[in-house]
């Protein structure tokens, strides 16, 4: 079961920007890149550092703690594809950005 949750207004995040959010108890990092919104878990799968403090380069985010790099489109860790950060669906409707959360019922 999954539901869409309102996150932010479309204009609240500039292109290339990132914003940490808490939605339904999930720590999420919302990113806007090349006009598209991506939502990933904000917790690095290595030791849990917040990816919001990392560096975004194209579609790759580098963790601030030990430099592990992840593709924001599918969550894959670039050095070992078996490790992934959770990725959430996003949609924009009437200038509002929504994030799809699994296991949550609105």
């Amino acid at each position, binding site marked *: 079961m999954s539901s869409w949750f309102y996150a932010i207004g479309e204009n609240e995040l500039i292109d290339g920007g990132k914003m940490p959010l808490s939605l339904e108890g999930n720590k999420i990092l919302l990113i806007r890149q090349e006009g598209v919104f991506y939502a990933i878990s904000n917790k690095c*799968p*290595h*030791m*849990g*550092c917040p990816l919001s403090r990392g560096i975004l380069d194209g579609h790759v985010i580098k963790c*601030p*703690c*030990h*430099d*592990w790099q992840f593709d924001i489109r599918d969550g894959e*860790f670039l*050095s*070992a594809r*078996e*490790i992934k950060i959770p990725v959430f669906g996003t949609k924009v409707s009437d200038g509002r950005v929504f994030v799809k959360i699994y296991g949550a019922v609105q």
Partner: protein
Amino acid sequence: MRSYWVCDGEKMDTGKRKEQLKVMYQRVVDPLGYKFSPDEEIVDFLLEQEVQLEKEKGNPFCPCQGLTGERDHDMKLVCPCIPFHREHYDAMKRCWCGLFVHKSVDDPYELQQISLKDLEESKNKKKKERP
């Protein structure tokens, strides 16, 4: 470099930190096909070393490898470093220190260390043998 070792403004004790590292590492190495060594004594010893390194240097660096001070190099030696040296570990069925072994390994003392040089040589040999 920021350390995430401090919890609620208080330094955690070594035993607690070792347990935390164990839980975090387990989540990382499991999908890669590795597990903690069945030798609990060596696991405990290496984790203790890592906690000391984390206290001194801010990160749980590999207890059996030397750091150079270059970030690109040293970050690949933060435990578990399996993703960055996988080919070598897959060939040995263990990591350099022996903290982790392949899931298929019951007796870590049957495993042999393979030097990086030997690994490269055997790879080159296989390449040449290919038609």
